């Protein structure tokens, strides 16, 4: 039965219909921000509000990661003092926020995007240049 189940899964794996790329928003400099405009290809797949909310949250997380705050200052000084050996044992503030972002994207995918046949790709895999949204084929056209 388990085999049958996995075979069914394989058979039902939807094909990729299209990919939408959300580009970076450079209007405020080289800070990592993504454009929040709603791509037209997704209009039939997901609510605009929901999508924009996701992108806005991501933007906020990236702003938090790049913030020149006390934590980054302390990290820098500590690193200097320890001849940067601290990087071997401790992860930086940015890396911590990146993990948070990865978790957020995973959660969004599971809850919101996968049921709609979409998949968000973590932008870090693309060098923080684009957010890739994969649109899967909707075989059940009759709704």
């Amino acid at each position, binding site marked *: 039965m388990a085999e049958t189940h996995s075979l069914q*899964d394989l058979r*039902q*794996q*939807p094909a990729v*219909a*299209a*990919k*939408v*790329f959300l*580009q*970076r*928003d*450079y*209007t*405020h*400099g*080289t800070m990592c921000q993504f*454009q*929040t*405009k*709603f*791509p*037209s*290809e997704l*209009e*039939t*797949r997901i*609510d*605009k509000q929901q999508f924009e909310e996701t992108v806005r949250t991501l933007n906020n997380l990236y702003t938090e990661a*790049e913030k*020149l705050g006390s934590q*980054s200052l302390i990290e*820098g000084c500590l690193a*200097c003092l320890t*001849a*940067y050996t601290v990087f071997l044992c401790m992860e930086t503030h*940015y890396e911590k926020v*990146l993990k948070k972002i*990865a978790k957020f994207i*995973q959660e969004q995918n*599971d809850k919101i995007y*996968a*049921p*709609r*046949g979409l*998949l968000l790709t973590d932008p*870090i*895999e*693309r*060098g*923080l*240049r*684009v957010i*890739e949204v994969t649109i*899967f*084929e*909707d*075989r*059940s056209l009759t*709704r």
Partner: protein
Amino acid sequence: MPNSAGKRFKPTKYIPVSTAATLLVGSTTLFFVFTCPWLTKAISPAVPVYNGLVFLFVLANFSMATFMDPGVYPRADEDEDKDDDFRAPLYKNVEIKGIQVRMKWCATCHFYRPPRCSHCSVCDNCVEDFDHHCPWVNNCIGRRNYRYFFLFLLSLSIHMVGVFSFGLLFVLHHRERLAALHTTVTLVVMCIAGLFFIPVMGLTGFHMVLVGRGRTTNEQVTGKFRGGVNPFTRGCCGNVEYVLCSPLAPRYTLDPRKKAHVKIQPPFIRPDLSDRQITIKVSDNGIHNTIIRSKSKSSLDGLDEKETQPPLPPKADRYNQLKNQLTSSEVESSLSGKTHPSTPAMYKYRPSFGTMPKVHYHTAGEKIVMADDLKTSAIMEEGVRGHDYRSEPNLDMPEYTNAPLHRTFQSSPLQLDSDPIGSRSLSLKQGHCRPEKSQLPALQPQAHTSTPYKSVFSPNTLSNRNGSLSYDSLLNPSVSPAAAAECMAHRAAPSRGFHSPYLPTKMCHIREPEMQRQQVTLTYSPVLPPRGMGRQSPHPRDRDPSPVRYDNLSQTIMASIQERKEIEEREKRQMLRGRSQTHIYAQDSGVFDGGYGLTHNACYPEGPRCPVSRGPTPPAYGGSRDNLMGVGLSYGQRTPVLRHAGSTLGRAPRTSSTSLHTDHSSSNSSHSRAPCPDGPYFSPSHQPRSPAMPRSPSYSHQKLSYISALERTDSPRLGGPREAMKVNGQMDCHPSAQGATLSPSRHSNVKKVTGVGGTTYEISV
């Protein structure tokens, strides 16, 4: 043969870094061994401790600068660049803090390099915030390791100063025993330090200036911001803080982590579309072209999806989408970079029909709320309904005053006819109670033609779409001028359900027989169609020389056009003689108001240009033109202006009829086409008559100005189509930047702007 990814082992590239490392470690070791013992005894034990710490710092930074990933971008996936690779322009402009920055396409990495990114030929990678490739550390200096490189330079300078000073101290105390080993070694170390002192200190000073200015070496050396503003600077303190205190940027080239499997299985949830609220939103805040290009396929796919729905509403939806997108977004022009890749930003300044391609890519910026099914059918009728309004003999001023808001939409390529359609497109939400159901069946047969629209909207057909609407109207003048305008509506609406007016000429001709068939069933008053025709002719024509199209008209059409011209001339003459000028002009102004769109930028100069010599008209025109160039709310204002101008012109030119006439003749000759002196109905045949009629020059002048305005404004007046034809064929009074005859005034409205990348854009004001 190793590929680019597998680098060949080149020993030569390790020579500088080996030399630097050897010199650094070796010299410092010698210093510690031979000089420091005496210093410890003679001065203090703190000396070697201090030197040791500094040396440790130098080494740490040197190691970080050498071994740390500078911020290498991984190569883009194939999916990301499949639209970009072959048709992409080399540069893409993006605005950063109000300054245009150029992004270059990287052929190796297959993406547009983000700002400040550069491709290192030594490392064969695009590096974020690329500073330079340093041979002494055998690594690129980029965003992630610039801080360590800068600290390395600082600490090395300090270290060299320290070593040199303490060595000098040692040598001065051992002058009498210079041949001794310790002294010799110290001297050697001092020489090395002194030798590299100037270059290292020089480089340190250079980078201190760069950090203060917020520039990279690459930007400084290439002179990117020479005499310009650096959009990346945060002020001196902010820049220093950013370099030294910002968090360590992440690596992009990590091994792909094991992603948790996300189960994606149909059926998929879809957003609620019960009320058919589909919003298309595009914001213009970033990489416009990339979005368009990468999404062009998706947009087509999306459209395909829509076609699975019942044929009629989806087409109407698309029609509305296209209409609204085209009409309302001047901003979107930048998105049309696909069709004109070399000058994407130029689209911002083109007449609204330039936004045509955006529709295709669904990149329109506005929110388009599409009517529900009930309304979409009404939308389909819009083109048809155009004639309804046209058939109404009374041109309500209020209707035209509403037009301004719609005018913007009118100017879109999807403008099928005069204001009514434009107002209808806007009034989708308001519910269409238009009763032109009879026309709907005519539209339905064309439902099957929904697919061809894609070919229409292919990226490179923009240039072919000019004037399709106007030509449609021209093609069917036999029924009536109104019919012609209506035909345009018909053509646009039925043939594709929503196709833009900018279909290629061939398509117009193809549809001509259809339209002729349909026209017979329609009844239009003479007043309305010309307006539509006049309106459409200007902006679609912008790119195509009208004479070409004019020649394409069939003989029957030409004959019918001529007939109508004569009829109208006769009528006009009667009107001129028997009625007050004010009345005529009132009508004309009404017509004008209805017909003015927003794409008259180029044409408009003609308007004021013509009447310049005519006294009262020009000021009125200038004012009204300015108003018209705006949102169009001035349409209402134009009416009194026109009326006034008309009435004053009636009076004033009489005194200066000769001069006016002269001007008129000259303008006529220059334009190779004389607007009818009889007012809205211009006909070449009228020219000889003008001298005979003292009033006609004034009218003709005024009309000339009106006509030129008409060109652009789809004035639905009688003879509008003829005027449009004339304009297209002769005066070349197209709203766009065509028309050699109108070049002087036109130039005044076309600005040339040089972008950052050296690209020159023409902006029509």
